[in-house]
């Protein structure tokens, strides 16, 4: 508990309690290599409540990661805005998402690039806290706590290159959690992992979400993953000019079982929605093509 108080007080004032994060008419336009504008996403209107596990589900190249980048503050929206709304203290104050900061922490798909290869696991996790206070005794205890949470306490002295893909992602998660961010942004974090590792990490992320109550925005192209994790799933249309096609509440009990009837029903719904995007509305929805999307 003490650790939580300590980091909360160090957080910047911009992280004042908020009730929801809103995308208001958000669009992103890139210049392609020939300098012509390319509309990646448009008209995104979404409201994510504090504490949501919000999954963005869509076909490859639909601009899911771009949305995450804009929330993280790595790049600004070309149109519209992303704002925090409300909060007990701030009344209905609206504050736009500004540059990257410790209140929103990103878990990247490519852990090998995201981790700092010259630091061992513990030093990676302590990177953020040590930027604030060079040698804080509490830091190390804190690191041990979060390494334990992701099951890496026996590997603290290892370097990233000595770890498997799944373990690297665990380091990233611990490194983000120690900053006590308001929002965890996860960009297809388990897409490069084998199926078994992937499943066990999904279960753990679900547990960590329940334990910490963080808001999580999770990008994926995997229907089952979205349903195992999300409280809400937003299906995106195919790009260019991608936008939100449909939002789905998922109020199945946790831990979720992929073989439950209710779960399978939702898989069907999402498969049909995605199928329309990949093959067009008139496309045949044979079982084979459905499977290939999942």
């Amino acid at each position, binding site marked *: 508990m003490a650790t939580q108080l300590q980091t909360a007080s160090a957080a910047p004032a911009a992280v004042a309690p908020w009730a929801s994060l809103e995308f208001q008419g958000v669009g992103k336009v890139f210049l392609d290599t020939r300098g012509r504008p390319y509309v990646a996403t448009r008209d995104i209107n979404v409201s994510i409540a504090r504490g949501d596990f919000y999954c963005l589900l869509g076909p490859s190249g639909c601009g899911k990661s771009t949305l995450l980048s804009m929330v*993280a*503050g*790595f790049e600004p929206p070309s149109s519209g805005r992303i704002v925090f709304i409300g909060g007990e203290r701030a009344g209905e104050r609206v504050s736009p998402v500004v*540059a*990257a*900061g*410790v209140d*929103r*922490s*990103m878990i*990247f798909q*490519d852990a090998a*690039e*995201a*981790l*700092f*290869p*010259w*630091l061992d696991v513990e030093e990676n996790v302590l*990177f*953020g806290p040590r*930027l*604030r206070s060079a040698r804080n005794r509490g830091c190390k205890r804190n690191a041990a706590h979060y390494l334990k949470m992701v099951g890496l306490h026996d590997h603290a002295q290892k*370097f*990233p*290159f000595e770890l498997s893909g799944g373990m690297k992602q665990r380091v*990233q998660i611990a*490194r*983000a959690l120690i*900053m006590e*961010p308001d929002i965890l942004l996860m960009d297809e974090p388990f897409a490069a992992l084998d199926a078994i590792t992937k499943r066990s990490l999904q279960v753990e992320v679900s547990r960590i979400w329940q334990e910490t109550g963080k808001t999580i925005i999770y990008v994926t192209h995997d229907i089952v993953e979205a349903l195992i994790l999300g409280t809400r799933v937003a299906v995106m249309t195919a790009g260019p000019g991608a936008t939100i096609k449909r939002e789905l509440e998922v109020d199945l009990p946790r831990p979720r079982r992929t073989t439950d009837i209710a779960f399978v029903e939702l898989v069907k719904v999402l498969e049909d929605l995605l199928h329309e995007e990949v093959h067009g509305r008139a496309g045949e929805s044979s079982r084979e093509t459905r499977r290939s999307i999942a």
Partner: protein
Amino acid sequence: MPPVARRLLMGALSIGTVLVLWHWSVGTVFNPALVPTPEQTFAKAWKMMQSGELFIHIAVSMRRVLVGYVVGCLLGILLGAVIGRVALVRELADPLLELIRPISPVAIVPLAMLWFGIGEISKFFVIIYATIIIVLLNTAAGVSRTPITRIRAARCLGASEYEVFAKIVLPSAVPYVLTGMRVALGFSFMGIVAAELIGANEGLGFLIMNSQMLLQTDQLFVGLLSLGIVGLIVDRIFRALLARSMRRYMQFLGDV
């Protein structure tokens, strides 16, 4: 056979073969006035070591190489970091660097004499020149190739612009910088003969050129061999020292 033993054996085998061939070819293939036998060369080297003359030449050259190399590396890293980090500077510097690259250290000798005279400074200048470009180019490449993901990860952890540079970009560039420094070490040894074209009366480069004028081929061979052996030893020391102290920055690339 263990790999170390195999390497030693191969080394002994190749050097032994060359010595035998060398011994045999003098008088049969080559004119003995132009190529001394290995025995003559080693006898000369022994004599020069006993009198201390050889060590003076080595020491004088090493001092020039060391000063020029260290200054060249420092300047190269500094400039390379700026060029790699600031896109505008990089765009402006690129054509200039491409222009300078083909100009060898020997070509810079007349300029060094004009600018700095025939003292030590002009010799340092030539070695610095031989060193700086490759270190600069490698540092710039390393700095500009830091994965964007790594920089973004640091931003999420609260790193400022300066902290991103000092704690992420520079460490990410270390393998590139060290590679550049190692190549530059070889270049600085290649530059010593050029540097000692300038009014030198000591040093291995001087020894080699002076032997040519005096037609002392055995002494010339001693100079060449010394240059090779000293270069090899310094390279080994460099690898042992720097690569070990920088281990954490290199290990993920495999064996150094």
